[in-house]
C-alpha cells in the first residue's frame, strides 16, 4: 500500500466517522443524563430528510441544516415527553421513534417531490461544499506533510470540523462546568440531584435537546455533505453503530472520538477490499467489516477489555420516593 492510498483511506475514514461521532456524542449527552436513546437512528434519518428537503426547496443548505436540527429536536422532545414526563419505557419510545422516522420520511418525500421517496439531487448552495483550508494548494508539494494537510486535513465540509471540535467542547462541558456535574449526577443518582434542590426533569430535558441538536447535525451531514440528497433509509444503521461506539467509548467524549474513528476506518476498508488483501493476503468479506463494530462491542460488554459501566440510573424513570 502506498502513501497516497493510506491518505485516501484515512480521508474517507474521517468522512465516515463524522456522522458516527456526532451521533455518538448525542447519545453520550442523553445517556449520561440517564435517558437511554436507541432512537439516534430515527432522529438522524428524520434530520437527513428534512435538511435535504428544505435545502432543495429553499436553495440554502444552512436553512436545510436548521430544518434538520428542528426535526431531530422535535423527535427528542417526543422521546423526552414519553420517557421523562410520562415515565415510559425508554427503549420502547426509542424503537417507536425509529419506526416513525423510517416511515414518515419516505411518505413525506413522496408527497412533496414524487421521486419515489427521495429528494431531488442537491446542487450549489443547497449542499455543503468542501472547505479548502488556507495554503492547501501551496503546501501540497511539501513531502509527507503536504499531502497530509491538503488531502487529509483540508477539503472537508464545515460539519466535519464542527464534529471534531465538539469532542473537546463536550469534554469541557461535562467535566469543567456546573451543568456537566449536574448532568453526570442525574444519570448516576437523580435522587441526589433532586434533594440538592435541582430539577431532575429540567436537566434531563436539556440533555435530550442537546442530543437532538447533535443528531440533527449528523443527519444533515449525511444528506447534504456526504451525499447530495436524501434516499430511503440512508442512515443505514449508523445510529446503532454510534450506540455501539458509545459503549465502546465507555460513555467518555475522547474515547468516543477514537471509537468512531476506528469504526469509520472499518467503513472505509469496506469500500477498499484490495487494500486489506494487499496487507494481510486474505480476502476479507465486506460484510464482516460491517459487522465488526458490533462484534467488538459485544467483546467490550463481555468485559474482556476493561469494564464498561453505564450510567447507573440509565433507563430508569425518576420517581420521587419518601
Amino acid at each position, binding site marked *: 500500500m502506498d502513501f497516497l492510498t493510506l491518505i485516501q483511506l484515512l480521508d474517507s475514514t474521517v468522512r465516515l466517522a463524522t456522522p458516527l461521532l456526532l451521533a455518538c456524542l448525542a447519545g453520550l449527552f442523553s445517556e449520561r443524563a440517564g435517558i437511554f436513546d436507541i432512537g439516534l437512528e430515527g432522529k438522524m434519518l428524520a434530520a437527513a430528510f428534512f435538511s435535504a428537503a428544505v435545502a432543495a426547496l429553499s436553495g440554502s443548505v444552512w436553512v436545510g441544516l436548521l430544518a434538520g436540527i428542528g426535526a431531530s429536536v422535535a423527535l427528542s422532545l417526543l422521546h423526552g415527553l414519553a420517557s421523562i414526563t410520562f415515565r415510559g419505557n425508554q427503549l420502547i419510545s426509542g424503537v417507536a421513534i425509529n419506526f416513525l422516522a423510517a416511515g414518515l420520511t419516505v411518505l413525506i418525500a413522496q408527497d412533496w417531490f414524487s421521486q419515489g421517496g427521495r429528494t431531488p439531487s442537491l446542487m450549489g448552495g443547497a449542499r455543503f461544499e468542501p472547505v479548502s483550508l488556507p495554503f492547501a494548494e501551496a503546501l501540497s508539494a511539501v513531502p509527507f506533510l503536504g499531502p497530509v494537510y491538503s488531502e487529509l486535513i483540508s477539503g472537508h465540509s464545515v460539519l466535519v470540523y464542527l464534529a471534531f471540535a465538539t469532542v473537546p467542547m463536550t469534554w469541557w462541558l461535562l467535566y469543567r*462546568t*456546573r451543568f456537566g*456535574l449536574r448532568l*453526570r449526577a442525574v444519570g448516576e*443518582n437523580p435522587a*441526589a*440531584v433532586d434533594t*440538592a*434542590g435541582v430539577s431532575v426533569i429540567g436537566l434531563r430535558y436539556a440533555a435530550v435537546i442537546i442530543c437532538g441538536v447533535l443528531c440533527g447535525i449528523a443527519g444533515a451531514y449525511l444528506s447534504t455533505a456526504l451525499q447530495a440528497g436524501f434516499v430511503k433509509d440512508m442512515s443505514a444503521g449508523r445510529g446503532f453503530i454510534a450506540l455501539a461506539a458509545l459503549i465502546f467509548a465507555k460513555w467518555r467524549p475522547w474515547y468516543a472520538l477514537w471509537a468512531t474513528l476506528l469504526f469509520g476506518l472499518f467503513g472505509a476498508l469496506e469500500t477498499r477490499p484490495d487494500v486489506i488483501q494487499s496487507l494481510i493476503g486474505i480476502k476479507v468479506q465486506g460484510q464482516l467489516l460491517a459487522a465488526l463494530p458490533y462484534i467488538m462491542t459485544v467483546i467490550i460488554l463481555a468485559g474482556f477489555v476493561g469494564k464498561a459501566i453505564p450510567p447507573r440510573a440509565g433507563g430508569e424513570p425518576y420517581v420521587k420516593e419518601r
Partner: protein
Amino acid sequence: MTAPAIELKGISKAFGPVQANKDISIRVMPGTIHGIIGENGAGKSTLMSILYGFYKADKGEIFISGTKTEIPDSQAAIAAGIGMVFQHFKLVENFTVLENIILGAEDGGLLRPSLAKARKSLIGLAEEYGLNVDPDALIEEIGVGMQQRVEILKALYRQADILILDEPTGVLTPAEADQLFRILGRLREEGKTIILITHKLREIMEATDTVSVMRRGEMTATVKTSDTSPAELAELMVGRKVLLRVDKKPAAPGDVVLDIKGLRVVDDQKVERLKGIDLQVRAGEIVGIAGVAGNGQSELLEVLGGYADGTGVVTLNGQTLDLSGKHSDGRSRRGRGIGHVPEDRQREGLIMDFSAWENTAFGYHRAEAYQSGLLLNNQAIRNDTAEKMARFDVRPPNPALAAKNFSGGNQQKIVLAREIERNPDLLLIGQPTRGVDIGAIEFIHQQIVALRDQGKAILLVSVELEEILALADRVAVMFDGHIMGERLSSETDEKELGLLMAGVGS
C-alpha cells in the same frame, strides 16, 4: 424568650384514604436535639418530607425561627436553613466527596472555583465539628459511616441550621453510631438544631433533649427526655404496655441437631470468609451469632441455607449435608428440614412485587397441598396464606397485597410464617428484627422462643447485641471468619462480648 427553630402548627396530610399525618403540632427550640420516635408507618417520615418540601401538607403552617415559611420544594427547604440526612443516602457513588458536596450548591457556571471554595470550607468544618473526610475520595470507596458524614457536611455546607436525620444508625456499627452522636453533640453546642428520627428507644434516651412520640399519624406526646423512661415511651408508641425483655424459660437442650466442623468458605474474589468454623446447635436451644457485620456471619447463613459453597463437615441430625454440588441448594436444604429466614428479607426472602400468597408458596411450591394436577392450586395457597397471616398477626391480613406494600415488620412476619409453619428441625434466622418496629419485635421474639420450646434448634444471627443477649441461650462471637469464643448468655454481658467482637480475648 427565643422563638422556636421550628414550629409546626396543625399539619395534616392524607394519601388517598390513609391519613398519614393528623393535625400535628410541634415546637423545637434552637440548640437542642429533638427526637421523634414511632413505629414504622406512624408518619414520622411523611412529616419530615413535608418539612423538606417533598410533600405539600393538606393543612397546617410551618414557622422557621418565628417566621411563617412556605416550603414547596427542597430548594425552599435548603434556603430556609434545613438540611436532611436521609436513611438511604443521596450521594453520587462515582463522584468524589467534594463533588457531592457542591452538587446543587455551586457558585457560578465553572467548577474549579466552586471546588476550591468547598475544599477550603471543608477544612473549616472538619475542625469545627470534628467531621474529617478525605475530600478527594470516591463515595463508593468509603464506608457508610463516612458517607453519612458527607451527607452531614453537605447540609452544613449549605448553611443549614436545622438538621434532620432519618434513622441515621440503621446502617452503622455501634462504634460508628457512638461517633455520630458525639458529632451531633458538637453540632448542638455550636447552636444547631437537630431532629433525630428513630425507632430505637436507646438512641432517644442517650442523645435527645426532648422527644415527641408518634402513633398512627398522630403526635401522642412531647416530653423532656430526662422526665421519661424507655418503658413509658414504648407504651406511648405502641399504645399498650410492651415487654422490652423477652420472657423465656431456661433452655432444655437435647441432642445435637447441627454439627459444624472446620467449615470454610471462599468468596468470588478468592477471599476466605470462613476460616474453619466449629459450632454445634442442639435441639431446644437458640444459639446466637454475634459480631460486627461482615465478619462471616452472612456467609455462614448462606452456606447452611444452601446458596454458597463451602468445605468442611456439616451434619444435620447425624447425617452429612452436601456443601457444594447439586444437593447443596435451597430446595435440598428445605427437604432436609432446614428453614431459613434470610438476613435481607427484601432481596432474599421475598419478591417485593409479588403478592403475599405467592411469596408464601416460594420454596414450598412443590408441597402436596399446593398442587392441582399439573398446575398450582392457587386457591389452596391463598387460603393457606390467609391462615398463616392470621396466626402471625400480619396486618393487613390480605394475601393478595404485594409484599412491598407491607411494613418491614409485617414483611418479616410473612417470611417467618412461611418458614416456621413448615415445622423445620433447624431454623436459620438472620437479622430477625432489622427495620422492624417495637410491637412487631416483641411478637417475632415470642415466636422464636415458642419454636425453641417445641424442641427445635435455632441459629440466630444478629448485629444487635441486645437482641442476641435477650434471645440466645448460648452466644458465639464471630470475628474475621473465626469464632472468637462461646459464652452462655446468662453468664456474659455486653462488655465481654464487645471485646470478643473486636477480636480481643480468648
